[in-house]
């Protein structure tokens, strides 16, 4: 379980807080979505949850970050990595560039932990299987499609055996086929017990994946709740977020005074 209690974060040298008084609990196996306009704090939230903020990028953090009840303050980054993985939106800049095959790429993390080779191989194979990309094991990671690269990135994180994954707009740079590939894999990953926190603009994607959604506005929670309610809420567009296609259509139809009756 990952919990943020009244967390505020300021980037180094920044005048304003990027995240304000943020409280959230991510339970085991849950999938929670985060939406918000650009620069509303989605990426900052991801960096804070993963521990990179402040450990890697500096800045000041107040409040508490707890994993299964333990305060993570002061724990080094390589320890955080065993609890929470973070996936970014750019598929290529997450590759280590020193792996000739996907297998080596995914093994990179466990190797860093100094685990013995059998354990590394076990974790790598298991991660590849969980994401359904076992067939890519011998491929050159730089030659894959965007969607495949993202899955390799996630596999690389899973091999660290975290129980939580934070994803910062993982499908933003992918084509529709890539988006579907990643969405399906994330869904099956959630079913196997990993907790996911996904920040996205694509509300259609979140509608199919998340049980809860949090709406961010200038670094603080504007409102939150169960997915269907949050995404159908009229305030969504005020906060700069495009509603899912079905909600948008319904609204358009109803504003013309008509009624939309969709057969199941």
């Amino acid at each position, binding site marked *: 379980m990952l919990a943020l209690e009244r967390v505020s974060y300021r980037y180094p040298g920044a005048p304003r807080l990027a995240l304000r008084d943020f409280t959230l609990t991510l339970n085991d196996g849950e999938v929670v979505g985060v939406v918000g*306009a*650009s*620069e509303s704090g989605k990426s900052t939230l991801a960096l804070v949850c993963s521990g990179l903020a402040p450990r890697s990028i500096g800045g000041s953090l107040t409040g508490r970050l707890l994993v299964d009840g333990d305060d993570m303050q002061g724990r080094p980054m390589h320890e955080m990595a065993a609890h929470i993985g973070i996936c970014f*939106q750019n598929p290529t800049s997450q590759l280590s560039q020193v792996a000739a095959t996907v297998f080596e790429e995914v093994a990179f993390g466990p190797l860093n932990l100094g685990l013995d080779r059998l354990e590394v191989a076990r974790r790598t194979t298991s991660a590849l299987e969980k994401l359904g990309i076992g067939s890519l094991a011998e491929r050159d990671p730089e030659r894959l*499609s*965007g969607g495949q690269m993202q899955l390799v990135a996630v596999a690389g994180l899973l091999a660290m055996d975290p129980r939580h994954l934070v994803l910062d*707009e993982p499908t*933003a*740079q992918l*084509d*529709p*086929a*890539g988006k579907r590939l990643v969405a399906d894999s994330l869904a099956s990953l959630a079913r196997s017990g990993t907790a996911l926190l996904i920040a996205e*603009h694509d509300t*259609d994607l979140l509608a199919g994946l998340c049980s809860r959604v949090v709406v961010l506005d200038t670094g603080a929670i504007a409102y939150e709740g169960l997915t269907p309610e949050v995404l159908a809420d009229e305030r969504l*567009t005020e906060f*700069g*977020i*495009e509603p899912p*296609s*079905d909600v*948008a*259509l319904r609204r*358009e*139809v109803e504003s*013309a005074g*008509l009624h*939309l*009756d*969709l*057969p199941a």
Partner: protein
Amino acid sequence: MSDIRCAELRFEYPGGVRALDGVNMSIRAGERVAIVGQNGSGKTTLVRHFNGLLRPTSGTVTVGDADSSRTRVAQLAASVALAFQDPDKQIFAGSVESEVAFGARNLGRRGQDLSDAVEGALESVGLGGEKRTNPYDLGYSRRKLLTIASVLAMNTPIVVLDEPTTGQDLRGVRIIEAIVKQLGNDGRTVIAVSHDLRFVAENFERVVVMRQGKIVTDGPPEQVFAEESWPTLRSTNLEPPYAATVGARLGLGSTPTLASVVEALES
């Protein structure tokens, strides 16, 4: 006015990859065209022929009177301005203002004329108040709007946008939709390469679908997204926009846009 004409256009990248395999098409001045297809279908390769960045391996591309293989890119840029997908592979200036002025200045505009062009472009993307800001102090989606502003300031009769809505939030998408509409009203040609079929259906009068270097469908959204065309779309790994699927489920005919669904329900 400039038309773009492609005749038997074939293009092979060094290394033998055939990206375009006999493309025949023309775009009339003032049209709003969207080019769609999955990654690798040739859509980006095609639009890079419009300003001469790529020259045909065989076949011809003409922009107005100019043969693209015989004209310098810097000259074609006066007719066709192309905004690339990744803003971080273009932005170099220290201020929003100079970045936007770059293209227009290259085309020879100076003084008041130049600052008017820059002002106008910044207003249309909503960055009017950020003239002195360092582009890297803006977030990704606003940097993208910045590159589009830079292209708008060039005031060319033809504007090409490569994946303009990728990575944009709602506000960004609305701004781009307004720009496309305004360009159309001004009689300028707008060509967009996009994955976002909702954006395409709602804003363009013509959709060109590509697969493996060839055009497989070319027509208005009502035709390209109609149920009969779905097998073709799916063969290129594309799904029709949501509005079209609803129209099909309710037996309303071809309804590529939200407005068309409303219209169909009203009748």
